[in-house]
């Protein structure tokens, strides 16, 4: 059990041959209100010691359910068939997790297999120190003295790269950043030295730059601890970066299984091929932006901008004598008619605040922001009202941006009714049908309720609603970040197509450089509320001037294992510099 401190045997079990987990003909059904539903259907998988197996697929493909079965974490509504045979790290014992119950199952968890969760802040208990939480795993599996537990907690924290672990071990989760919290979760998984770690979307909640660090750490888990990893993800870049072998799941079945470099180079299954095609890559949009730029008239530059921010500052008021929080500070940029400005940044960079201010949802506190000729600093709702129909807004989460009690047709008709273009939703139906067709939704979908549509369909309906009044400016706040890659690709295509035909100006906010690149004429990079860099796609992505932009760009994993390995080196050099 001292393997945590024992560095002499890296990748010890790698050639032992015996797989750490073998999944045979696994099928899982859930009892739901609508009868039983099969989520996993005859899955066979094997993970060798010290191997990283990535399970990819769109949401609902059964990848998370498969992963949870390995830990016996299925809810009581689930019924499983088949076998999930876990072998411990020494290869001395085998357990079929599907058949295990109670205490026996508890013994396997933690020692043979551990889990890393998606949302690090939710997986840590806020009222205990991280040291205590790491030690709890040790206490659950055998008698460990207080001092010994602490020593091992400090040790494992050091090894996952928490600086100053002797002091930090007594800190509470809120005193760590998001990336550090994920490191602590990984430390908790590693402390019992399991043969297998199941990582369910371990980097989805993190920013790109932090994601790169966590992926490095997971790679070290494999190399130094000899731990096998089952990586659940929908991000092909992450797969390319970390995985040795990839299993592609689609509708509960594994459609393809291959070593990573083979899968990316020569995908066999139809589905895999199309999945890879739909992953946006940086650099694809530059040519398109140039075509658009060349088609513009000479005097276009001189036209009055649709949005003009001049030293714009937005501060959220602080509470009780605490200073306010400045979300956007001193930002100056402009969007001219018919132009798509992509706004990128990490979480907390102020990009959403900026978009909301443009739509008049957040008050401007300093500087000047002119939207369609109206000064937003100190604007009254009454002055804003005539401009409202000229601005469309697409929200991030299509699930919440529709009133769940109105049909899609009613929702899309709402702007028409509110602005007096139609007296009732029924009267607006003709126009609504046109709009639905414009976003490639069948007319009959208008009679459905939002929850009866999938995410991508809802986001298209959301686009229809935003375009209902023929706006001159469309603000899109992370419109595709809640969608699967394959769906995202189609929504982005649609967006580009509509923009080309209708010619609206757009502020397109995203955390994903590749997505922004695909659509934008110009790209602006925000960092901690400040504008770091602005320019055309070729300028910003092709030849970034600022250190931060370079790091952001290098952190973005590309869906190609060989290219990604090179980029990893580049990033390491950048970090060292």
């Amino acid at each position, binding site marked *: 059990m001292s393997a945590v401190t024992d560095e002499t045997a890296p990748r010890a079990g790698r050639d032992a041959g015996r797989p750490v987990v073998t999944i045979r003909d696994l*099928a899982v059904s859930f009892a739901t209100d609508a009868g039983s539903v099969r989520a996993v259907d005859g899955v066979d998988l094997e993970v060798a010691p010290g191997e990283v197996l990535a399970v990819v697929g*769109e949401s609902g493909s059964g990848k*998370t359910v498969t992963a949870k079965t390995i830990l016996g974490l299925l809810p009581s509504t689930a*019924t499983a068939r088949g076998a999930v045979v876990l072998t411990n790290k020494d290869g001395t014992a085998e357990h079929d997790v599907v058949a295990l119950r109670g205490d026996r199952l508890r013994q396997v968890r933690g020692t043979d297999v551990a889990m890393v969760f998606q949302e690090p802040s939710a997986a840590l208990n806020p009222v205990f120190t991280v040291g205590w939480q790491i030690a709890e795993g040790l206490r659950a599996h055998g008698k460990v003295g207080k001092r010994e537990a602490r020593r091992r907690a400090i040790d494992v924290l050091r090894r996952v790269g928490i600086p100053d672990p002797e002091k930090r071990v007594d800190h509470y989760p809120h005193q760590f950043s998001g990336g550090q919290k994920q490191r602590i979760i990984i430390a908790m998984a590693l402390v019992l030295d399991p043969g297998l770690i199941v990582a369910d979307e371990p980097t989805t909640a993190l920013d790109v730059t932090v994601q790169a660090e966590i992926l490095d750490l997971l790679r070290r888990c494999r190399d130094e601890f000899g731990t096998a990893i089952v990586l659940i993800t929908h991000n092909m870049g992450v797969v390319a970066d970390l995985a040795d072998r990839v299993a592609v799941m689609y509708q509960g079945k594994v459609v393809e299984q291959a070593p990573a470099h083979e899968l990316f180079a020569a995908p066999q299954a139809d589905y895999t091929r199309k999945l890879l095609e739909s992953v946006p890559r940086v650099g694809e949009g530059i040519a398109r932006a140039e075509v658009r730029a060349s088609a513009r008239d000479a005097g276009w530059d001189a036209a009055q901008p649709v949005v003009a921010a001049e030293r714009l500052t937005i501060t959220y008021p602080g509470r009780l004598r605490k200073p306010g929080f400045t979300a956007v500070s001193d930002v100056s940029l402009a969007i001219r008619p018919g132009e798509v400005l992509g706004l990128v940044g990490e979480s907390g960079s102020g990009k959403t605040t900026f978009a909301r201010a443009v739509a008049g949802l957040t008050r401007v506190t300093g500087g000047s922001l002119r939207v369609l000729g109206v000064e937003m600093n100190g604007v009254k709702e009454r002055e804003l009202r005539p401009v409202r129909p000229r601005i469309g807004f697409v929200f991030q989460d299509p699930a919440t941006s529709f009133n769940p009690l109105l049909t899609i047709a009613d929702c899309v008709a709402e702007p028409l009714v509110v602005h007096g273009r139609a007296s009732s939703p029924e009267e607006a139906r003709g126009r609504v049908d046109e709009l639905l067709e414009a976003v*490639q939704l069948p007319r009959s979908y208008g009679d459905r309720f939002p929850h009866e549509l999938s995410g991508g369909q809802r986001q298209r309906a959301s686009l229809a609603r935003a375009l209902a009044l023929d706006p001159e400016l469309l603000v899109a706040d992370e419109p595709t970040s809640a969608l699967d890659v*394959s769906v995202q690709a*189609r929504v982005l295509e649609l967006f580009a197509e509509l923009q080309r035909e209708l010619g609206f100006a757009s502020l397109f906010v995203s955390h994903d450089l590749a997505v922004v690149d695909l659509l934008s004429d110009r790209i602006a990079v925000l960092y901690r509320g400040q504008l770091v860099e602005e320019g055309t796609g070729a300028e910003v992505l092709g030849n970034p001037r600022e250190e931060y932009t370079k790091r952001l760009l290098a952190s973005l994993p590309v869906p190609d294992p060989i290219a990604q390995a090179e980029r990893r080196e580049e990033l390491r050099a950048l970090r060292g510099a």
Partner: protein
Amino acid sequence: MVAETTVATGTSVLPPAALPSRGSRWKRLPVVHQLRQSVGLQRGMLVAGLVITGIFVLTAALAPWLAPYGYSQLRDADGAFGAQQPPSAEHLLGTTVGGYDVLSRVIWGAQTALLVIVVAILASIVLGVLLGLLSGYFGGWLDRLLVVLADAIYAFPSLLLAILMAIVISGGQSSMWGGILAAAFSITVVFVPQYFRVTRAEVVRIKGEAFVDSARVLGTSHGRIMFRHVLRNATRTLPLIVTLNASEAILTLAGLGFLGFGIEPTKAAEWGYDLNKAVSDVTSGIWWTALFPGLAIVLVVLGITLVGESLNDLADPRLRSRRAAAEVSGEVAETSVVPGGTLTAGPGGLDAIEGAGSRSDVLAAAPARPDPDAIAPDDATAAGPAAPARGTPDDASTDETEDRR
């Protein structure tokens, strides 16, 4: 402009079969829907509660035909009933110390109880929900004032408040409707804060939802946002509180009657009053005067509480029990966006989606797809649509404190 982009598609109208079947309106009514949804013990509880409540309502409605005598009748053709007569053929449950027929008083009492419940709950819903909507939506000083007021009302023992209100409203004298209204309004005062808090907490939550923002971006007026977008989404938890409050209302009414602030026996029958008059009988071996009104109270409260509690459990996907899938069964869910063709039906235009006949088959299959959330139960439980349905007053007050912090 959009019209130009749309391809002329005569095939776009799908056959009616493609429309999702949402079940008849009847099946989606609050209680009926839950009854169909429930299984096992939960179903037993709900059915028992519904049966008891049903008997109560029927008794109340049919009291004039069911009761052998009037509620204030002391004599019939054969002369006076006599006080404290034991159960007999003429008086199945005996007579009270005042000489009333116990069975008749119990039956007529159901009517009084039902009227009080209905009036009290209607009044408190209308007031509480409206105030909660205004307070939650606009916030500011009005919100603070109303919250403090609600807190202040909470601080009073509810029965004391009800007594005060009964005196203020009825002014000491009580006719049947006067008594019923007095009792109902005094209960209303106690309940309004509950509806207010629950509605306000829901409204504050919904106000932050993206669809309200999206209405604001359109320039929708406050009134329209409040009633069309917010209110309709904020009423989900109300049926639950109504059933739970209904049983509390009966207890409050009985308490008022027992303490002598109820309705005069000559104006209407009231269980609490009868219990009060039966106090001295119990020690002298006269059991029938106290037992039956008491039993009526217990049964009705039990019935309504059973309904309320089961609705509470059924509304929460985490507490709802389902028929276990005996073995691995069921269809693989169509979780793809355009099933079988997420990627093939490219953005090439409408034809790609609905041009071919096969495509409309696919769409027809789509509605059968169960809610995607249901397939990933971890998500469903975390953010199940009915999760906020636990919004009992306690929950509301936790929301409250978080909100204030």
